[in-house]
């Protein structure tokens, strides 16, 4: 559904992302991990079509990514970014409705409004609808933005192909909502949507991801799929920390503990 072929992105002589080849299929939740500055967000932006002028090729749904217009892309994929900075008072309801902007011309259809309501309900922000977005807490605004991107790629028919990009979606959420968002991402993936997320919490990543991709200095170091046994040496090398792996008693998934010395 989404394929990167030898993708390299450089600023001057510095390669932010180097020779990346990856294939993503629909129904998958893929998580990209790595240190700060490893090129995760850059890769995400290239795959999402917002960074152009890269070397190599990206194919989205059997078409070159470059051949998509801005509007076509907006109807196909949604992106949750790390930061939002809104300078004027805008009600939360309008922010969520923006997710439907690519789908209507002047006035939202009844269907657009229903989708927004469902997305807000899903993220538990219905009661914030009339609040000024700027008065929300960090976690609340992250949930509102999540509702917006969910509304953007809400499936009109079952099994319609869509892609959801999440750049650190849980960074300011409490424990409950960290898991909640990833559960939603996982559920979304099941309905034929491809979800690609950048995460910093390795335990969350291994708990939910169908595939974990480790990056270091712009390159892919190692990819783990599903229940593959994880080598702690790889994790130690990627993050420059000493780790041990134990089992999560609830899910049997690996838990990484760090030796701080």
């Amino acid at each position, binding site marked *: 559904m989404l394929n990167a072929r030898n993708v390299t992105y450089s600023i001057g002589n510095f390669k932010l992302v180097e020779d990346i080849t990856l294939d993503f299929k629909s129904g998958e939740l893929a998580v990209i991990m790595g240190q700060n500055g490893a090129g995760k967000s850059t890769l995400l932006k290239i795959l999402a079509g917002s960074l152009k002028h890269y070397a190599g090729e990206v194919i989205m749904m059997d078409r070159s990514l470059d051949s998509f217009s801005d509007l076509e892309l907006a109807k196909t994929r949604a992106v949750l*970014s790390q930061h939002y900075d*809104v*300078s*004027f008072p805008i009600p939360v309801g309008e922010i969520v409705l*923006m997710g439907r*902007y690519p789908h209507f011309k002047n006035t939202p259809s009844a269907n657009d409004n229903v989708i927004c309501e469902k997305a807000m309900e899903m993220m538990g922000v219905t009661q914030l609808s009339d609040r*000024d977005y700027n*008065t929300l807490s960090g976690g609340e605004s992250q949930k509102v933005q999540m509702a917006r991107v969910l509304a953007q790629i809400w499936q009109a028919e079952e099994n319609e192909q869509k892609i959801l990009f999440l750049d650190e979606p849980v960074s300011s959420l409490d424990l409950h909502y960290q898991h909640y968002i990833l559960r939603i991402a996982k559920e979304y993936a099941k309905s034929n949507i491809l979800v690609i997320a950048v995460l910093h919490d390795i335990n969350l990543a291994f708990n939910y991801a169908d595939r974990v991709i480790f990056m270091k200095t712009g390159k892919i170091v190692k990819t783990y799929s599903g229940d593959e046994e994880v080598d702690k040496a790889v994790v130690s090398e990627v993050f420059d920390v000493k780790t041990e792996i134990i089992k999560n008693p609830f899910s049997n998934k690996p838990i990484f503990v760090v030796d701080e010395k």
Partner: protein
Amino acid sequence: MNLLHSVKYSVIYWTLGVLLVIMVVISAGVGAVHLPVSEIIDIISHAFGGHPDTPINSIHEGLFFQIRLPRTCMCFVVGAALSVSGALMQSLFRNPIVEPGLVGTSAGAALGASFTFVFAKVGIFAELAFLGDLLLPLVAFVGGLTATTIVYRFSSFYGKVNVSTMILAGIAVNAMAAGGTGFLSYIARDPQARSITFWNLGTFSGADWKSVIIVASITLICILAVLRYAKPLNALQLGETEANYLGINIERMKIQLILINTLMVSVATSMVGVISFVGLTVPHLLRILKGSDNRYLMIGSALMGGILMTIADMLARIIIAPAEMPIGIITAFVGAPVFLWLLYRNRKSGRRGGFYA
């Protein structure tokens, strides 16, 4: 969060519309010769063929139709143009303190217009004489566009506009344009020089139907064009990258909107001079009333800007009657304190979450 949170947009538009009509009628009556509202109504109904028996003072009729009404219409149209421009630029640059005067548009247009005043019959301008009344707005547009382009070029890196650089570049370009205008008024012969100086502070005294029609048609076309961008401008408030994720070609939209905006402001400025603070303040008043939806801001700014400019011009004619004050003095004296009040209000409540929270 806003005063009129639960009031419908259409109610606000109608209220502003009715206020506008009332202000236009009152304003048309004010001046050296007072025309009471009843007489204005008689004059209008007479012109439309009603009450042919009512005696009409034909001098008053001429005064109303040839001097007062075009002037009041010009106030309305220019107020609308400047306020819509302010709302547009604030949304486009996602910054609450941007206005046409700040990014050099007005000063550049003023320089272009002064140029036409002084050199109207010399060299290339003599060749362009066939343009007639369109020469002045055209040269003003070239001046406004040049200044805006310089400021914009200096403040954007890799397609992102740095607002603080833009403000600094705006100061420099404004100073240069003002210097140019000053130089022109220095070398100009007396009547021209006097008109440049007076017109630098803005005046509606020269308004006639011809200029009203030019400004009104350009402003109307521009506002209609801007309204088509209301939705993408809303999305832009999330940030440029986010708006792009929502399917908007940001670079193309920016260039189109800056062109439209420069055209609208330059043409208005070429006819009435530089009028500050209206474009800055009106959109803020509307946001306090009811939110930042760009469609509402554009329509509301057109109406409210028209009303406030009509009132300001009325004050300019009353305060030192029978003489007349440049309107720029009024808008600066009223607009600047209002803006300071906005800053104070923001400081009081703006501990977190930006300018309005």
